[in-house]
């Protein structure tokens, strides 16, 4: 049984779907961040698989940059979340959707 590129792409699709389901479902912002990490990781699997099957290193390079972006996203996002939590004492998405000027 040969594992082809399509196997990996289907797996990346499934993981992307799981992440998207989490993004749409979650109301807690911390859990929403977890779901976005799943999205980024599923894309990385696709990049690494294409890089392997086409013998090209560009896919792996992009995976590195995605990881760097994910790391900075976590730092800034958690900082903002801490500021919000100190001010409002919750991190609920529904509370944030109210625009009180």
């Amino acid at each position: 049984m040969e594992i082809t590129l399509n196997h990996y792409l289907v797996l990346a699709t499934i993981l992307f779907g799981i992440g998207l389901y989490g993004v749409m479902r979650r109301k807690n912002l911390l859990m929403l961040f977890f779901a976005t990490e799943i999205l980024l990781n599923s894309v990385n699997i696709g990049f690494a698989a294409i890089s392997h099957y086409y013998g090209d290193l560009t896919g792996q390079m992009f995976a590195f940059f995605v990881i760097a972006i994910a790391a900075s996203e976590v730092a800034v996002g958690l900082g903002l979340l801490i500021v919000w939590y100190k001010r409002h004492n919750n991190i609920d998405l529904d509370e944030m959707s109210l625009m009180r000027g």
Partner: protein
Amino acid sequence: MFEAVSFYLFAFLVIVSFWIAVTTSQALYALTALAAGMILISGFYFTLGADFLGAIQIIVYSGAVLALYAFGMMFFDTTREIKEKNPNGLIVGTLAVLATLLTIAIVAAPIVSQNIVAFYPSVESVGNTQQIGLVLFTKYLVPFEVAAVMLLVAMIAGIVLAGKKMDVSLTKMAEDEIEEHKAQELN
């Protein structure tokens, strides 16, 4: 044969742990399942011959990112049950599947039509890490530097945002001092 076994085993484990991470109502379970999934994903990278990427996945994701999340969880009251309002799980699930298929179709259509030529073909004689060094520090040097600046900006932003009022330490104060401090903040 072994490649197939490892692929299906890792795929099953990753899907299960990520499914737990998006569906559980306990923040700690979600964090643990996410950490397990991240480490298992590095198994794919090692199978695909991307050794350096697998090591980076374990160090950066499972080490740094999830440690940061665990650190952030200490700030929030995560012991209480997380409220999830689900008016219709079916609609959300259908939307997720449809949007995923659309995105993958758009991105993967040029790949499937098989007219892609390798820009930087991998060299067989040297290892994966050496190849990455060769490509990263020649062809991708500018994006690499930009990523470094971006990480610096993110670090400063994190310090500025989270480090407000860090000069007062509540743990070193006595009980009455804390009360006094809170009363001062309220005024």
